[in-house]
């Protein structure tokens, strides 16, 4: 039956509406969609609070108002759009309200607008938003008004539920504004939460006075006309709806009643509504009267003046709201004005009763929270949770002290009640307490206790964290001695608890301390409430056990606290002083030891330096070939200088064998009397400094010096030319020296002087001494006996020589090296020794030698000293010279060498004296 419109004969496909998708009717409505048209026609363009127009953007407004700096779009007000702007000339922030253009339509608008606006401008009241300017621009009516930095009542109600107390603070301000306006003959007509502004200081300001009339929004019908859908929360008085022409200021009072009701209950008084007090406990029943009377349908039955409402409300508020406002300042003033009593004994007594009465619960809760706190303290979580945990514990004990029955959830309620302030307070208080500990002087101790009540103030009275801290501090400061005593007592109690049963006693003492603190809090902060019977938040305060006000006790506590503090201070200082003294003496002893060690080290260093200055080294290796007489010329070698010497012919002739004499008698020929003409040979020997001679047939003759060979034990290597060190050489020579003297002493029938201990075997060269006094000592060196020979020359030079292999029978090749040390005096002294040793007269010679010995000792030439001393014939002189030399050497720090020389002293007493002197 239907004609199919989509058959091919139909050129036009059915169009669809881009908005709703329905097919469009053909050739109708100019292509518009009827459904959409109807939808737009049926729906209301405005919501309950919306403006009937799209507010212009900030840029548009800025263009319309060049004289203003438009800063931001604040919102759509009840009738228009509001913008935040700045007047540059006056440099003030204002609110610019633009009304919808349709408001400007209608007859007589301009005239009405001006009239109303002028009336509004007369309203100068702190609780009324002032109108600075008004006018029309581009068909848009506008007002420039006072800018209120805050929220309107609707926004406030949305963000948080207002308490009865807050409502009681707002309503009187509204009443004042209304009364003022009514006295000026102006009715608001549109009182509603959106028009009631509350700034950041809590001041109430009514906006949009009289605009309703201005806009022609006087009747319900007008409203419906522009708003459309009915269903908006309606603050209009009944007569405003039914008989708008009879409306007077009492309509505002009705609206106020609606607003008031909404503030208290959160709902509108529609139909059969319940009185405000029935919903919430905190609403005073007397307020019911006020609200209900304001909401009377008949204007005659309502309050006739806004001021009457205000009076009624304030009467109730002053009676009921002696409950301390959440203002810390007022609270503090109250409490400080009344003064308080802190009876420590009573607090602890009651605490004991409380805890022992409900033992397991209190112990358990306190233990749980404490353990959580300490567990959290070890991590960073402690920073966050400890404040709320402790706050909850305070609240638990507070409630218990008030006789309520808190559950364990109360102990955790710190998180839900005031998480951030508790956390902050905990952090800051602990920080300050820590600083107090660092100080440990009176201000520090003060800081320890000042914040005691911060947490309960936040948890119980819901103060902000800094006001709570300040309040606690101010309260405590009043009688801070007592608090100190309180704190000390609690501390001692907990200390005792800690010591008892290895800390388990704490589980008992901590709840007692907490409970005592809670009672103290109640005594101080609860007093204000108890006198009027209404506690914080309008709750009924159950009377706890009253504190015994004993003023006499306070003085005793003060003294006790003073004594305890003094004792602690003295203790602390004395401990400190003792520690300090110990520390100082330790330091002194340490210093002395250090000093001595330093001195000893210095001395050793000195000796080492001196010894080092006498660093031993070998001189150059000198090789010489010495010719025997049989080869023609008899050659002598001066070991000290390394030069070959040839005697003069007449001396050489002496050495020549007499007819019939054996060539080997050479060394026998040494027995030459000094008055013999042949003694010239001996004299030449000594003068020339010759040390060695080759007598042929492999025999080397060493004169006056000491020639010996020494074999060390396995550890030494005295037989190896290459590995010999100068020290070893000198040591060997010392041994040899001693050996010679020992031999000499024995030959004189005297005991051998004490000699060096050596691990080697000493073999001296075959020696022959001259029978005649003054003759040289002769040493016989042969290669068969040893290749290496240690020697010590007449002049005191130490060295070692090696007899090389030789082909020719009449020459011998040797190499030797002397142990050398830098000493500028040595040569001079050696020369002097040489010279002195040939002095003929014994006495003179001994004297010269003694002088020389002393000089050598002064120069530190221990070797020369020894050599010189040996030359001294006279025992007494020698001993004396030795003693002097020992002293000299000791003074130079050459103790070792001095000891050696001391040991050579033949006289026992002198030797003992010298050695004892050295031992010091």
């Amino acid at each position, binding site marked *: *039956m239907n*004609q199919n*419109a989509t058959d091919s004969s139909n050129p036009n496909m*059915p169009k669809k509406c881009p908005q709703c998708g329905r097919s469009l009717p053909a050739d109708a409505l100019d292509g518009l969609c009827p459904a959409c048209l109807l939808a*737009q026609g049926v729906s209301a363009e405005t919501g309950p609070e919306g403006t009937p127009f*799209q507010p212009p953007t900030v840029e548009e407004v800025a263009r319309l108002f060049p004289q203003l700096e438009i800063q931001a779009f604040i919102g759509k007000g009840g009738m228009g759009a509001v913008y935040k702007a700045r007047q540059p000339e006056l440099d003030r922030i204002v609110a610019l309200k633009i009304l919808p253009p*349709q408001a400007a339509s209608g007859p007589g608008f301009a005239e009405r607008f001006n009239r109303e606006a002028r009336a509004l401008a007369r309203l100068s009241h702190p609780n009324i938003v002032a109108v600075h300017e008004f006018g029309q621009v581009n068909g848009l009516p506008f007002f420039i008004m006072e800018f209120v930095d805050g929220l309107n009542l609707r926004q406030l109600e949305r963000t948080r539920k207002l308490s009865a107390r807050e409502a009681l603070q707002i309503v009187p301000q509204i009443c004042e504004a209304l009364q003022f306006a009514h006295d000026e003959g102006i009715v608001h007509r549109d009182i509603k939460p959106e028009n009631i502004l509350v700034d950041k200081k809590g001041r109430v300001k009514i906006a949009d006075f009289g605009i309703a009339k201005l806009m022609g929004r006087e009747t319900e019908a007008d409203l419906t006309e522009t708003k459309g859908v009915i269903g908006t929360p309606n603050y209009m008085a009944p007569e405003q709806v039914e008989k708008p022409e009879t409306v007077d200021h009492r309509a505002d009072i009705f609206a106020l009643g609606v607003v008031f009701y909404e503030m208290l209950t959160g709902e509108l008084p529609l139909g059969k509504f319940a009185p405000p007090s029935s919903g919430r406990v905190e609403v005073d029943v007397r307020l019911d009267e006020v609200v209900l009377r304001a909401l009377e349908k008949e204007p005659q039955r309502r309050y006739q003046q806004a001021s009457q409402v205000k009076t009624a409300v304030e009467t109730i508020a002053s009676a009921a709201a002696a409950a301390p406002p959440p203002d810390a300042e007022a609270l503090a003033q109250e409490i400080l004005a009344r003064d308080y009593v802190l009876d420590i004994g009573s607090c602890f007594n009651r605490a004991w009763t409380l805890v022992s009465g409900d033992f397991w619960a209190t112990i358990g809760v306190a233990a749980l929270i404490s353990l959580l706190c300490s567990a959290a303290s070890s991590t960073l979580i402690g920073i966050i949770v400890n404040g709320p945990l402790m706050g909850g514990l305070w609240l638990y004990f507070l409630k218990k002290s008030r006789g309520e029955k808190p559950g364990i959830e109360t102990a955790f309620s710190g998180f839900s009640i005031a998480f951030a302030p508790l956390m902050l307070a905990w952090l800051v208080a602990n920080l300050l307490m820590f600083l107090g500990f660092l100080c440990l002087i009176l201000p520090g101790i003060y800081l320890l206790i000042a914040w005691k009540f911060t947490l309960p103030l936040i948890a119980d009275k819901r103060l902000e964290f800094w006001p709570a801290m300040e309040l606690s501090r101010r309260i405590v400061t009043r009688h801070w001695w007592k608090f100190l005593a309180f704190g000390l007592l609690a501390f001692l109690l907990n200390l005792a608890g800690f010591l008892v049963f290895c800390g388990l006693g704490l589980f008992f003492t901590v709840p007692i301390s907490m409970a005592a603190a809670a009672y103290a809090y109640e005594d101080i902060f609860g007093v204000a409430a108890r006198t009027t019977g209404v506690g914080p938040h309008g709750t009924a305060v159950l009377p706890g056990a009253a504190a015994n006000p004993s003023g006499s006790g306070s003085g005793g506590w003060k003294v006790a606290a003073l004594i305890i503090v003094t004792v602690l201070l003295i203790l602390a200082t004395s401990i400190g002083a003792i520690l300090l003294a110990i520390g100082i003496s330790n330091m002194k002893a340490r210093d002395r030891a250090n000093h001595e060690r330093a001195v000893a080290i210095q001395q050793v260093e000195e000796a080492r330096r001196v010894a080092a200055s006498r660093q031993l080294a070998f001189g150059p290796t000198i090789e010489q070939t010495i010719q025997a007489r049989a080869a023609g010329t008899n050659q002598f070698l001066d070991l000290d200088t390394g030069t070959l010497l040839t005697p003069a012919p007449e001396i050489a002739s002496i050495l020549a064998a007499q007819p019939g004499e054996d060539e080997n008698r050479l060394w026998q020929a040494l027995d030459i009397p000094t008055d013999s003409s042949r003694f010239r040979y001996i004299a030449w020997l000594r003068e020339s400094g010759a040390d060695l001679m080759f007598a042929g047939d492999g025999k080397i003759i060493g004169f006056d010096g000491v020639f010996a060979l020494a074999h060390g034990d396995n550890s030494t290597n005295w037989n190896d030319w290459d590995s010999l060190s100068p020290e070893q050489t000198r040591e060997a020579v010392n041994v040899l020296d001693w050996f010679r003297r020992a031999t000499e002493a024995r030959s004189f029938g005297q005991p051998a002087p004490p000699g060096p201990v050596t691990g080697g075997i000493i073999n001296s060269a075959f020696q022959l001494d001259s029978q005649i006094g003054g003759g040289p000592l002769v040493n016989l060196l042969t290669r068969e006996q040893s290749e290496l020979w240690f020697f010590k020359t007449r002049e005191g030079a130490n060295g070692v020589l090696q007899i090389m292999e030789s082909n020719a029978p009449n020459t011998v090749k040797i190499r030797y090296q002397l142990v050398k040390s830098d000493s500028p005096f040595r040569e001079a002294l050696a020369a002097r020794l040489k010279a002195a040793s040939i002095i003929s007269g014994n006495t003179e010679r001994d004297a010269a030698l003694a002088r020389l010995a002393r000089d050598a000792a002064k120069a530190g030439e221990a070797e020369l000293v020894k050599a010189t001393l040996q030359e001294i014939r006279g025992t007494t002189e020698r001993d004396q010279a030795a003693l002097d030399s020992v002293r000299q050497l000791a003074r130079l720090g050459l103790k070792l060498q001095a000891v050696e020389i001391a040991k050579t002293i033949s006289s026992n007493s002198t030797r003992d004296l010298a050695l004892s002197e050295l031992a010091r």
Partner: protein
Amino acid sequence: MSTEPAAQTTATRADVFATTHWTVVLTAGGGGSQQADMALEELCRTYWYPLYVYVRRQTPTREDAEDLTQAFFARFLEKNYLAGLNSERGRFRAFLLAALKHFLANEWDRANRQKRGGGVAVVPLDWQNADTRYQIDPPDNLSPDKLYDRAWAVTVLERVLARLRDESATEGKADLFGQLKPYLSVGKSAIPYAQAADSMKLTEGAVRVAVHRLRGRYRELLRDEVRQTISDPAQVEEEMRALFTAFAD
């Protein structure tokens, strides 16, 4: 003659109390006052198309539909249908449909078929356009009642637009109307003010104001039109919603 002054008096009285055509008709009570007749005629002249649509839906051919519709109107204006149909008296739309149904059910059989071109054209109807429109209209599987309602709604809207156009023309804003017309069917948040301002060489603020005014006036006129067909002004909302639901699938 003697009735004229009476009629006039009645008419004057009717003027004071009756604001809508239908009210006029109803208050006249079918007494055949001149005013009432004129009102009824006016209504019929306005709303014949939905009737035709309904009839056309029922009849296979265009000629039959035309005949039927014409016959109905003749009968309707002739007879006094008002007395019989009490329940629909509040709304003319419903009343008309009920009358039509009644007519179709009962009186067609006996009706004199009006020969084409020979019938008394009580109400001048544009048959040609009507059928064209009907043909083009999308073939919904809708009940005739719904078709009727939809056609009724479209008719109402047509009249509203026409009045708007006329008003704009008298204000000298015919062009403006033409440009802003599409925004009548668009949600207010979807209106591209900036673009419109650009194309119309106006400030955005001016466009907003003009659009707002037009939409407001449209709504007013729409309500007014709807109110013409109902007796109780409080039922405007209901009637409008009823029309809107005609488009609900």
